[in-house]
């Protein structure tokens, strides 16, 4: 019951709010309230998981092994908390600044249902279904603003991601074919008995699907186009919440379900991740608009997650989880700050930029330290150098924007609504707070990594 609560609250909230005009402040406020309730329910579930281990239920009272399982472990909870938190912040920001389209609050709630479901399911086909719920709402959200530019971004986003969904669906069907089950635990048990060649092919299919979602180097071409043209709050939702499906999927399917294939391809993953880091950072130096720079930067940042995943082991996996969470927070503040004007926002942007570069005492410092430790574990000086070079480059490109947008620009445009500006600054202070007191987050990511290596699913 506890497990269903976050899903049910957001879903019923979304259905109930769908007929109302989301541009009214009251409707937006109710949507924020529903999100807060769902977040509290998720925290309750998280405490339960933390104190007494994974929570599990089988839908429809079917015997275990037949019915569809929902399962909350530390990894799923960590990703669900950060994604729901990001959506909540972005929705509150948009409500404070004034919603432009009637469907926004309900769509954000639908997306929360989909995302929470993805992180709390233990069935690979159910994973696909929740994934699509989140995707379809994000397709519609991407059109928010309804200018030709927004619509073009939405079309690109939709077609590329539909292709990714098809690839993932093919991967799920093939996994069912070789293991005869859709349950994650069953797949993890039986996948080693399947022919190694076909499992490797399936692993590649699933990697391509999630790589596309994350915007990794060879699959990145849609990222700058889409994040440049979408509305800032929507770009924050897509890049800080929806892209978590990609990193979670890589962790769950790679380290959880197919660890043999993961260790077989670890070298390749590290190479692709490093290419992502360098390519994203170099490309981020040249463009003119802030959101395009952040989009290229996000391609570089997800490279770190892939490198950590490639290094593997408890240290590498914990680093991947930690970096995904911190990356989401940074991206959220950066994209939200881009949409506003005023010195409060400039301060928030600078704090988030320091966090991306990994300057202490921001949260990003601990993300970089975790990657650094993973690199030291793998005995690779190249990886250690990569962390430094990547960090330095990110400081350069982000402060170029700062110079252009907050120092050099004359402030003829009126400053944005105060509520939204204060919210962004509060979020940025949150990043610094996490950097000053990182123990809870470190413990959470360590236990998430343990959930992957310990229990199979």
């Amino acid at each position, binding site marked *: 019951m506890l497990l269903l609560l976050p899903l049910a609250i957001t879903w019923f909230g979304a259905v109930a709010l769908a007929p109302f005009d989301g541009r009214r402040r009251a409707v937006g406020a109710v949507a924020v309230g529903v999100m807060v309730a769902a977040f509290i329910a998720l925290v309750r579930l998280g405490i339960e998981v933390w104190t007494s281990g994974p929570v599990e239920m089988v839908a429809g009272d079917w015997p275990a092994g037949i019915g569809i399982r929902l399962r909350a472990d530390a990894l799923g909870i960590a990703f669900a908390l950060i994604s729901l938190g990001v959506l909540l912040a972005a929705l509150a920001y948009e409500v404070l600044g004034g919603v432009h389209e009637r469907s926004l609050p309900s769509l954000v709630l639908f997306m929360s249902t989909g995302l929470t479901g993805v992180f709390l399911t233990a069935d690979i086909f159910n994973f696909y279904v929740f994934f699509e719920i989140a995707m379809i709402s994000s397709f519609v959200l991407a059109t928010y603003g309804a*200018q030709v*530019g927004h*619509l073009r971004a939405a079309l690109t986003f*939709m*077609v590329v991601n*539909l292709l990714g969904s*098809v690839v993932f*669906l093919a991967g799920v*069907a093939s996994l*069912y074919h070789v293991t005869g089950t859709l349950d994650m635990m069953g797949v993890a048990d039986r996948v080693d008995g399947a022919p190694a060649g076909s499992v490797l092919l399936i692993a590649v299919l699933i990697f391509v699907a999630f790589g596309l979602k994350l915007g990794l180097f060879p699959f990145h071409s849609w990222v700058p186009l889409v994040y440049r043209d979408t509305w800032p709050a929507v770009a924050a939702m897509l890049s800080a919440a929806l892209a978590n499906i990609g990193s979670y999927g890589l962790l769950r399917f790679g380290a959880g379900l197919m660890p043999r294939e993961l260790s077989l391809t670890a070298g390749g993953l590290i190479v692709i991740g490093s290419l992502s880091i360098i390519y994203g950072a170099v490309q981020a130096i040249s463009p003119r608009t802030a959101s395009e720079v952040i989009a290229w930067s996000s391609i570089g940042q997800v490279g770190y997650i892939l490198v950590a995943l490639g290094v593997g082991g408890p240290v590498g996996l914990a680093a991947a989880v930690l970096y995904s969470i911190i990356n989401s927070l940074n991206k959220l503040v950066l994209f939200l700050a881009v949409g506003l004007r005023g010195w409060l926002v400039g301060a928030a942007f600078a704090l988030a930029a320091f966090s991306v570069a990994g300057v202490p005492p921001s949260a990003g410092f601990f993300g970089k330290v975790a990657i650094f430790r993973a690199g030291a574990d793998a005995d690779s000086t190249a990886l250690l150098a990569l962390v430094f070079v990547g960090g330095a480059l990110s400081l350069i490109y982000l402060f170029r924007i700062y110079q252009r947008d907050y120092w050099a620009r004359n402030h003829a445009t009126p400053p944005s609504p105060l509520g939204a500006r204060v919210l962004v600054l509060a979020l940025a202070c949150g990043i610094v707070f996490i950097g000053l007191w990182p123990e809870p987050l470190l413990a959470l990511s360590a236990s998430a990594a343990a959930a992957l290596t310990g229990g199979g699913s």
Partner: protein
Amino acid sequence: MILGLALVISILFGCGAFLLLKRDLIRMAGGVILISNAANLFIVAAGLSRGREPIYPLPPGERISDPVVQALVLTAIVIGFGTVAVLLGLIYRTYTARIARAVDQGEETEGTPVSMPPEDRVAD
């Protein structure tokens, strides 16, 4: 049978990928439809087992076909249908937004193809 299905899936996917690369948005939508149906067929093929229909009471000693894939493919078809509906709606909106802008700028709209808006016309 397996070879036949593989051929059909690859032809569907190939035609879909070809259409997807077209500039015309309607053809692109057609490509998405073909590719998602190739995936549906792939699911059916993944559980292809011959036998009696899986309905109780089962005849003893006879093979029955796998009912799970049927359920999966049904779900996938419904989801694919939903996404295609959203895609067509989006294409229509792009089309009307472009026409509206062309009219504002006094451009010729007669015979305008439904295509992706060009890069240099980004609204700021």
